[in-house]
């Protein structure tokens, strides 16, 4: 309990350094020779898109994952962080986006949880120490309050207090402001400033550029798992806010000129001449975490309409309400001019609406069932495969064989349980099911999420083909590269609203980047 005596800035060297750290997962390199120094007394902001490798980095620092190459250096000594407990012992504390407190216990009991099981926790003493620690960093906590009664912002403050009481010198705040109200986020920012004054190093991970500039001393940007650039304290102090933002956006999303890799597309007629297939008008959805409101867009035949945005801003809700899996609260959804907003999933499918879910194993397929059954999962009872409710094994097998070869599904057989296939092949099964037949409009939700390079390419080609066949394609993705490569027009979703729609031209990257980072409204 190295608590109230605040650690002094002893040496000028970094508290924690990552040196050429590489971490690979099957099919992807999450971190590629990343080097970052975390200095005491500084808020070090880590920026990057979804999938840029921030979470992996945090995972390695907090002992959840181990680097494949490179080393982590603490106080000049290379260390091997093999467990979260060891990370804590080394003085690295992590506060995650979602609260790690047990909601039904009081704060004191939450703090006592790590203690020896045979010892009765000294609640009074612990409460006193919590109070002292909280006061010393300028916040107020009632140690006997139930964790579940606190707001998310307060819960994070409590977790910071807990981390400090365990002797943390390097505090990682992983997307800490993502779920907070603006007021709570501001308080957290002020708290961070107070903490660094006491010599603590803070790693602050965020998507919001204004926060990064307001509270950060130093900014590092990750892109595709690599160091994409950094701004030191001098540079941040010297540049005015607008220049700094433009610089960071360029680092995060790449420069517009060099990497615009939109595929070869046939020219589309002007938006006004397209036959509108899928249209949402003033759509709203009730949801506890991210309600949708005032969503309007129209997708024409043969068009790919991309919806970019940071994960968790209502993408799932939007896809599900369009597909009919969740009730609509207001507004309209029209397919070929007919209102489908209140139809069932099956009726929408019969009219040609298809939904390629991102949750391939969770809801897209039934893992234990054979490939052949999963290919017909949305047509159970169809007269071509069931005569008066009785299955026709030959017809079902023919259907499966045809789709397996057409979509190049690598499977030992059509009777193999789909859960035994690789992610890429499961995705092919889902694509085969959704794209075959008389599809009119297709919703793709994060279609390449978690796939390897080969299968990403295949999936993107399928999306392209769907549009080339004259289908209206709605591409919801958190991967900006994907949207820039495929989409004709791009909208950005943020906190359940569409914050602007632009054409995918040479300035799209910059504009979308700004909309995603909360600069442009």
């Amino acid at each position: 309990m190295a608590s109230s005596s605040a650690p002094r800035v002893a040496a000028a060297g970094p508290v924690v350094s990552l040196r050429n750290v590489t971490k690979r997962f099957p099919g992807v390199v999450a971190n590629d020779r990343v080097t970052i120094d975390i200095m005491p007394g500084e808020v070090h902001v880590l920026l990057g898109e979804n999938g840029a490798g921030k979470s992996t980095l945090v995972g390695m620092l907090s002992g959840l994952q181990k680097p494949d190459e490179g080393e982590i250096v603490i106080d000049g000594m290379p260390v091997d962080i093999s467990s979260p407990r060891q990370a804590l012992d080394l003085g690295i504390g992590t506060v995650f986006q979602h609260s790690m407190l047990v909601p039904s216990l009081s704060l004191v009991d939450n703090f006592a949880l790590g203690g020896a099981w045979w010892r009765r926790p000294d609640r009074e003493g612990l409460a006193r120490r919590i109070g002292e620690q909280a006061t010393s960093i300028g916040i107020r906590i009632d140690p006997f309050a139930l964790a579940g009664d606190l707001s998310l912002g307060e819960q994070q403050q409590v977790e910071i207090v807990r981390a400090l009481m365990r002797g943390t010198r390097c505090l990682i705040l992983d997307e800490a402001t993502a779920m907070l109200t603006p007021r709570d986020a501001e308080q957290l920012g002020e708290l961070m400033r107070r903490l660094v004054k006491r010599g603590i190093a803070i790693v602050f991970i965020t998507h919001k550029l204004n926060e990064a500039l307001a509270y950060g001393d130093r900014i590092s940007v990750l892109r595709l798992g690599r160091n994409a650039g950094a701004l030191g304290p001098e540079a941040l102090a010297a540049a005015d806010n607008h220049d700094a933002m433009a610089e960071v956006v360029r680092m995060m999303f790449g420069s517009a000129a060099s990497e615009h890799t939109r595929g070869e597309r046939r020219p589309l007629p002007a938006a006004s001449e397209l036959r509108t297939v899928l249209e949402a008008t003033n759509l709203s959805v009730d949801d506890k975490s991210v309600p949708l409101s005032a969503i309007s867009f129209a997708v024409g035949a043969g068009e790919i309409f991309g919806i970019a945005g940071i994960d968790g801003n209502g993408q799932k809700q939007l896809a599900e309400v369009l597909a009919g899996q969740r009730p609509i609260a207001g507004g309209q959804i029209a397919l070929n001019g007919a209102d489908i907003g209140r139809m069932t999933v099956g009726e929408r499918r019969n009219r040609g609406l298809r939904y390629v879910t991102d949750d391939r194993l969770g809801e897209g397929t039934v893992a234990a069932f054979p490939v052949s059954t999963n290919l017909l999962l949305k047509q159970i009872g169809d007269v071509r495969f069931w005569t008066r409710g009785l299955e026709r094994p030959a017809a079902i097998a023919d259907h499966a064989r045809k789709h397996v070869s057409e979509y190049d599904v690598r499977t030992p057989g059509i009777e193999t349980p789909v859960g035994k296939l690789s992610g890429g092949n499961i995705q092919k099964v889902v694509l085969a099911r959704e794209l075959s037949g008389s599809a009119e409009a297709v919703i793709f939700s994060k279609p390449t999420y978690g796939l390897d390079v080969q299968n990403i390419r295949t999936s993107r080609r399928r999306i392209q083909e769907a549009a080339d066949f004259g289908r209206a394609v709605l591409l919801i993705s958190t991967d900006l590269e994907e949207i820039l490569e495929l989409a004709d027009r791009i909208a950005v979703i943020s906190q359940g609203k569409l914050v602007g729609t632009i054409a995918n031209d040479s300035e799209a990257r910059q504009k979308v980047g700004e909309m995603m980072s909360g600069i442009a409204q």
Partner: protein
Amino acid sequence: MSVEDISVADATDRARVDRLRAAIHMILITVGPVIAALALGGLILIALNVNPLEYYAYTLRRGLFSPTGLQATLTRMGPLLLIAASLIVAFRAGIWNLGGDGQFLLGAVIVAASAPLMTAFMPVWLVLALCMVMGAALGALWSVVPALLRAYHGVNEIITTLMMSFLGVSLANVLVKLAFLDPSTTTPQTRTLPVDDRLPRLFGTTTSSGLIIGLVTIIIVHLMMTRTAFGLKLRVVGANAKAAVHAGLHVPLLTVAVFAISAALTGLAGAVDILGTQGNVRADWNPAYSLMVVPLVFLARFNGFGTIAFVFLFSVLSIGGESAARKLGVPNYFSLVVVAILLIVFGLTEYLEQRRQTIARK
């Protein structure tokens, strides 16, 4: 997967060998545990100072190799098979209907109360048919509350069906003691259905045709669950409810249907037991068949034909065990101990089997 070209003949040959090996393997992992369980049960018998060979031999003789024993065994199978069918529908659809005892007894009581009165002004076949419908209907009725709570509020059906089962068993007892008491006897029980008015016996034996009803039902249920669109929908709901929503299935409606079918089959089991075997319901009678059948259905992995085999084995053990209990002083429920050991051994086999497969894959 091999990508190189292999000749068709080779492929079929290999497929045949693979199939044979798979079949032998299947028999080994099915029969092996049975023998192991009997051996372990034998150890317990030795601890009880009973010669296990004598016990098993006596059990088999009385449950299987004597004509009356075999007939009793086959008769007992009727209601058990119906309960098993009920559980197969529910379990395959991911619904843990454990309220079978209440549904069974209520079905039994309503039939025992009505059948003797109905025979006065109806032909026997009509009485039997109507009584079976009544038993099924009452069983289904007793599942309405858990069904609606589960389908529309997501309340765990294990708790609600068990609660309803306690209520159902008590209600059945109350009905026997207060409403349906036979005025002509001093023991608290319902009127007795004359033997001539019961379900017909098979081929001049004492075996009740309840066996046929049970066999036909469980085979129909098995085919329904494995071969029809309706059964597939239920299995999708059971295997992955989110996928069912994604695929556009009406999950609440299907859930209610599962409860109705499952509870109706259990109620029917109660009716068949009364119409075929018991003839009346005594106060405080509760054979608790339904919870006994649960492990059997698990052992058969919800397969109808496998279940028939296990129900037969269990009937032999329980009929024979009842005689052996009187003769050798081993408690009546020792057959349940054997079933429990069997379940554990099967669980272990499955675990080892999966480990073997993961190791083989690596």
